[in-house]
């Protein structure tokens, strides 16, 4: 039976095949293609900085930065340490607002757990304001350009940013309490109890393989397979087309991997995440807690970054448009995002994007099931299956760019 899942940044058609009450297969289709890559073709190289963010209303900032990086790679341009730090601050702020929205507006809503909307909303507003202090607006800024950032901030913005970070930290602490799995309190406890009482703690286990393709000040480009870590390279990323869906599947050396907050948190040796994973493996429990944990962690990193900015460094280093190729990955809210650009005669000859949702929601085969298929096959209840689906934090609009 085909179900249309909405409120996942667009919608997807999910087809469950039941055999004697058990889900035997699941196929996902994203019907809404918008042609971003075609729109980019033939345009001036820098136009990508305005068009790429329009892939997505919730993680457009990651798309902007991926585009800027891809162009810098193609042009052979460098950016200052200051620009690098500022870009991370705004990108992490986007991830934080995404996770808060998803945690409450999707997961809490699905599980019918009441929450303090006013506080949650305030945290969302503030995280977006933090982006705007540097980027001018959120969503859809174009402040990251090949060569750095357009903003030339002063201590005034830095002070405002610090105050905002502190305010979000306080709200999140008020809402979530401490991340201590022995003594969960507040909303974390409510979530755990809801999962426990509905018998959902162990559902959604998948391939237990994780991949991160990007490197920044928080994560490394590593994959984790059978507990072993190996460096990853974009060379081994393969795209595969599937019938009836505009979303191509993505594999790494023939294997599906989970990308996203859980993959990132798994490579960081965090006691809270490790203990959850030992007990619940890569179930929805670990996946959900890893995501909201990341929000808290990135907030601390933003606070540190704000102290490291040297205002005397240039915001922008002149960067000439020349022909070349750029193939880059950057961490977006949902995982490793890939942009690939070819510049010819100063125009975009080719542009291609692989989004994190494509990694997690590929349609595999019986022998080689995708993350989503492995996580859902065997369940007997559609509601549970839908929750597992949402635990991957699907972005339909990204996937159908």
């Amino acid at each position, binding site marked *: 039976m085909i179900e249309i899942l909405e*409120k996942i*940044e*667009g919608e997807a058609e999910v087809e469950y095949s039941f055999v004697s009450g058990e889900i035997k297969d699941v196929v996902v289709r994203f019907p*809404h293609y918008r042609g971003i890559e075609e729109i980019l073709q033939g345009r001036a190289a*820098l136009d990508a900085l305005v068009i790429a963010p329009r892939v997505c*209303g919730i993680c457009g900032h990651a798309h902007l930065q991926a585009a800027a990086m891809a162009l810098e790679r193609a042009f052979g341009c460098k950016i200052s340490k200051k620009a690098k730090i500022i870009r991370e601050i705004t990108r992490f702020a986007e991830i934080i607002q995404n996770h808060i929205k998803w945690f409450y507006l999707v997961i809490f809503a699905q599980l019918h757990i009441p929450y303090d909307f006013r506080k949650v909303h305030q945290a969302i507003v503030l995280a977006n304001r933090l982006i705007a202090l540097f980027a001018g607006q959120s969503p859809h800024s174009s*402040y990251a350009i090949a060569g750095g950032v357009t903003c030339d901030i002063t201590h005034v913005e830095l002070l405002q940013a610090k105050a905002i970070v502190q305010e979000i930290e306080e709200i999140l602490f008020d809402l979530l309490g401490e991340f201590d799995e022995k003594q969960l309190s507040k909303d974390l406890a409510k979530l755990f109890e809801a999962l426990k009482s509905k018998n959902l703690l162990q559902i959604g286990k998948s391939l237990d393989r994780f991949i991160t393709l990007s490197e920044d000040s928080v994560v490394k480009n590593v994959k984790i397979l059978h507990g072993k870590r190996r460096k990853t390279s974009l060379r081994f990323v393969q795209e595969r087309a599937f019938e009836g869906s505009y979303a191509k599947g993505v594999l790494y050396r023939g294997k599906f991997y989970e990308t996203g907050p859980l993959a990132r948190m798994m490579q960081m040796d965090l006691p809270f995440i490790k203990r959850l994973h030992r007990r619940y493996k890569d179930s929805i429990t670990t996946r959900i807690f890893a995501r909201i944990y990341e929000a808290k962690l990135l907030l601390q990193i933003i606070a540190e970054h704000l102290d490291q900015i040297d205002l005397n460094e240039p*915001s922008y280093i002149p960067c000439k448009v020349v022909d070349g190729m750029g193939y880059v990955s950057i961490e977006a809210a949902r995982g490793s995002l890939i942009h690939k650009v070819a510049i010819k005669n100063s125009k975009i000859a080719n542009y291609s994007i692989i989004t994190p949702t494509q990694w997690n929601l590929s349609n595999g085969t019986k022998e080689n099931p995708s993350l989503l298929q492995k996580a859902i096959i065997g369940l007997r209840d559609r509601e549970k299956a839908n929750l597992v689906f949402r635990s991957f934090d699907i972005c339909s609009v990204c996937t159908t760019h």
Partner: protein
Amino acid sequence: MDRVFWLQGITCNGNSHSFVNLSTLPALLKNIEFIYHPLLESLSFSKALEQNFDILIVEGGIKRDWQRGGVEFEKLFLELASKAKRIIAVGSCAVYGGIFKEYDKEICGVLFAKEEKSHYFEKFKDKTINIPGCPAHPEWIAYALIYQKPHLDDYFRPKELFAYTVHAGCTRNEYFEWKVDAKSFGLKEGCLFYEQGCQAPYTHGSCNKILWNEVASKTRVGTPCFGCTEPDFIQRDLFQTKTFMSIPAKMPLGVPKRAYLTLTGVAKSFRIERLSKRLIDD
């Protein structure tokens, strides 16, 4: 209490997210009720379709063979739009067709397809307000939800929001007055109209009056305005000013070329020392 249905066509969801940034949203939600919104607590799409409502918000472009919730989108739009007492087209896709029209010419907005009238124009012109922008500013959306009969311009945009240009309130105005261009990106100093492609002087919008996220705007962080509230968004060569005989090809809104040239000649014949230096000397 007005009941609102938020319908999404061909969109990136940017307006839904922009709207959630409205800092006074909890207060607004005491005056209106969303029976459907893609993010906020509301009914499921199919249940919402059975309800009565007052205001239809359209986000995203419209096209015939496009599906929403398994139903043909145009049919859905026509049905809901006919039922609504008022329609608010939110974001440049719903207003003019928007950026995805560059890929598919058939995409149009509620009343317009770029500068042309859409085939729904006659049907819905008496009850539609347009709030363009990519995305639309949350406070503009809230304004349209509350004020039922604002004065509208030729593109059905409320004048109280769109009679201004984005240039009004720009912190770089002194540089514009004296025709001092920005020497590069990443600087506080200089106007972005001469080299960097800024469209603020001829773009309708109050981005520098009602600030984004209450703190900033594109031009305030050194990014040129890309004219996203206008029917010709999205243009080409966005980070470069189109010039004709080395003067900007497009004039500030309502300014005759002769007036502009006269003023430029005078301004440029003086060198204002303060504006030619960095603001903060280290």
